[in-house]
């Protein structure tokens, strides 16, 4: 760090340029870093059909959205781990979750689960269910009408 002696040599004109370059380099660095990390860390949203067709890497953080199938919800003897099946009319994925289920999480309702595939089971860390009766997970809102009808028919 002998910069104290050498900075006397920076011309006034150049100081602004130096600052600008440093700022730009840092910002572009941040941008590139963000882009790189995002491509690795973003968790993708799957519906059961996609999940079965193109299985994601084991252990990679993903989200799974669909309908909780009627009659599939079972509580294990420890009282806090539940197993259920999420379906979209085309495929079914078994899900395991340990924890307190959100209010209004019931069979036949829509759910988005955050977690990862372990073997053939989706292990959920978190369940996002509807907050009030009008709330539909946004991703579910985008399912085609046909898909939803099928799902509803399937799960009723």
């Amino acid at each position, binding site marked *: 760090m002998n910069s104290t002696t050498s900075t006397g040599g920076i011309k006034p004109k150049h100081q602004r340029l130096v600052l600008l370059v440093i700022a730009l380099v840092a910002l572009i660095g941040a941008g590139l870093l963000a882009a790189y990390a995002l491509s690795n860390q*973003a968790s993708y949203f799957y519906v059961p059909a996609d999940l079965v067709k193109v299985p994601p890497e084991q252990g990679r953080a993903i989200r799974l959205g669909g309908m909780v199938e009627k009659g599939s919800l079972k509580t294990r003897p420890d009282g806090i781990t539940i197993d259920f099946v999420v379906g979209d009319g085309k495929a079914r994925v078994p899900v395991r979750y340990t924890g307190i289920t959100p209010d209004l999480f019931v069979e036949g309702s829509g759910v988005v689960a955050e977690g990862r595939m372990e073997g053939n089971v989706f292990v959920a860390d978190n369940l996002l269910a509807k907050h009030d009766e009008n709330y539909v997970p946004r991703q579910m809102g985008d399912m085609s009408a046909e898909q939803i009808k099928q799902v509803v028919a399937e799960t009723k």
Partner: protein
Amino acid sequence: MIAEIGLAVLWMAAALAVLQLFAGFSALRPGGKALAGVVRPLAVMQGLLVALSFMALIDLFLETDLSVKLVAANSHSMKPFIFKLAGTWGNHEGSMLLWVTIMAVSGGVVALVEKRLREDTLIATLAGQAFVSLGFYAFLLLSSNPFERLPEPAPEGMGLNPLLQDVGLAFHPPTLYVGYVGLSVAFSFAIGALITRDVGPAFARAMRPWVLGAWIFLTIGITAGSYWAYYTLGWGGWWFWDPVENASLMPWLAATALLHSASVLASRNALRAWTVMLGVIAFSMSMVGTFLVRSGILTSVHAFAVDPERGSFILALLAIYIGGALVLFGVRANTVTEGERFSLVSREASLVFNNVMLCGILAIVLLGTLYPLMTEAFGAKVSVGPPYFNPVGAIFALPMMVMMAVGPLLRWRRDNPSRISATVAVPALASALALLAVVLLAPGINLLPMLGLAVGAGLALASWLPLRGRNLRRTPLSVWGMVVGHFGLAVALIGAASESAFSTERLAAMNVGDRQSVGPITLRLESIEPVAGPNWTALEATISASYKGGAPVTLHPQARTFSSPPGERTESALHTRWNGQLYAVLGNEGDDGRWQMRFWWKPFVPLLWLGGLLVAFGGLLALIGRVAQDVKRLRVNDKIAFRKARQEALK
């Protein structure tokens, strides 16, 4: 009648804003001096009118006037008083009226008290403020009129979402709004200074209290919001990197950078263009935040009733203001002359480093928040969470905090690193010891919390070093503010790192009478009984908890069911000790009659919010110090001017 008065007054205020913009604009043109005198009174009047309009809306909510659409949709006659009041701004229209109110009132205050700035710069600032608020007037009056009547009064209101029926709501959104809107004043100052080519220390001094004030409110709002989410959502986390949380964090980051660069400009006359640019960015982030919250374009826990069309309105406003400001900046940037120089080892350079790091974090948060939108355009649905934000943000945040320990010790303009190396060695040693202790005593914790604890310990110590060698009684308040603020950040960092490193969790299905333990705490489920509140009923568990076998305390977590509108909410129970917090949640009843319970023991987690409040308190000290200093300076200047005038007269 009240609703009609409120609406009429709002229209009048909008008309005054048009006039204010026009008068300000013509006053700045050659020969337009005649109108210069009306700009200030117009701004004050506009502020008063909007405040009146907002009070009319509050009155409608307090009376529960069900012939008004907004009241019928969001309130209920049985709601407790505080939530009737908070319901005023707990919805889209009301919150936009609150936004305009704060904006117009602060414009009025600027017009009343600002005397340091050149008169033409002030007029340009007020015209800019009128221009910005006009967009929001249009938004309110054309697409979200809060005073709209129903054809027939509703028999009963729809009520307020149960998640929002919390004391936190009464204070959290207005606090953030004051922060957001305070940045609009900073934005107007930046525009005013650009228009009149007056970017200099006077401009920075005029802007600084507003930035500081906005920043204090944002800090409090974020801290309170984080605590609110922590105890009401029952997830046991304090920050979820939810888009709406990021929307409040981004203006804060920009305001923090602006605050520091405005300080450099005010006291050293350097970083001129940079400060103006940050003024524009900070307000852009407020608008991006409002856009994200109000449009519901991103999935969020806050996304209740949202309307994409309103989102496009805000997006258009964002494009006009920010695009316009950037064009103005591009045109005028070359007229902003170079400020004072400084060496690479100096207080200024360390502040530049921190500014750049803050902008880096801002870029990372912004990209992460918008990334799901970008990929959606290509058909892929993603969500971005802690695995992205935590490590990538830390790459910038940790070096910044290291620099925070060193920067305040450096001299302005030029310094010799060897002068402070002995002083810096002390906190460096503290960091190293903390790291060693963590590695030895708690092996296996993640890298980030480990670094966080080490840097936090060093910074907590280093933040007090600027006071070394000073006479504590004569140290300016603003220096105390810096010390307390930096210390607060270190405290918050230690709290956050400790929460993420040492939290223990216990999930269990329990019968009444069962025992469980979490961390050093043993718990017993005593009973589960129904209770009732004003507009809810609940199941309430009674739990006795004892820390390492000490005297037991009781906790009452609840599962509440609301009737209007129907909804459920878990009400967690907290027990705070000096060294941590016990968090209990009551879940559902299982088929076998056992109750699901969830407990966390979170060591030192209260430090997190305590630190946030300390940061805000530091800001408050600095604000008081600065304002007092400015008042003193004005008095002295007046005195000098008075003496000069008298001497002239004597001659």
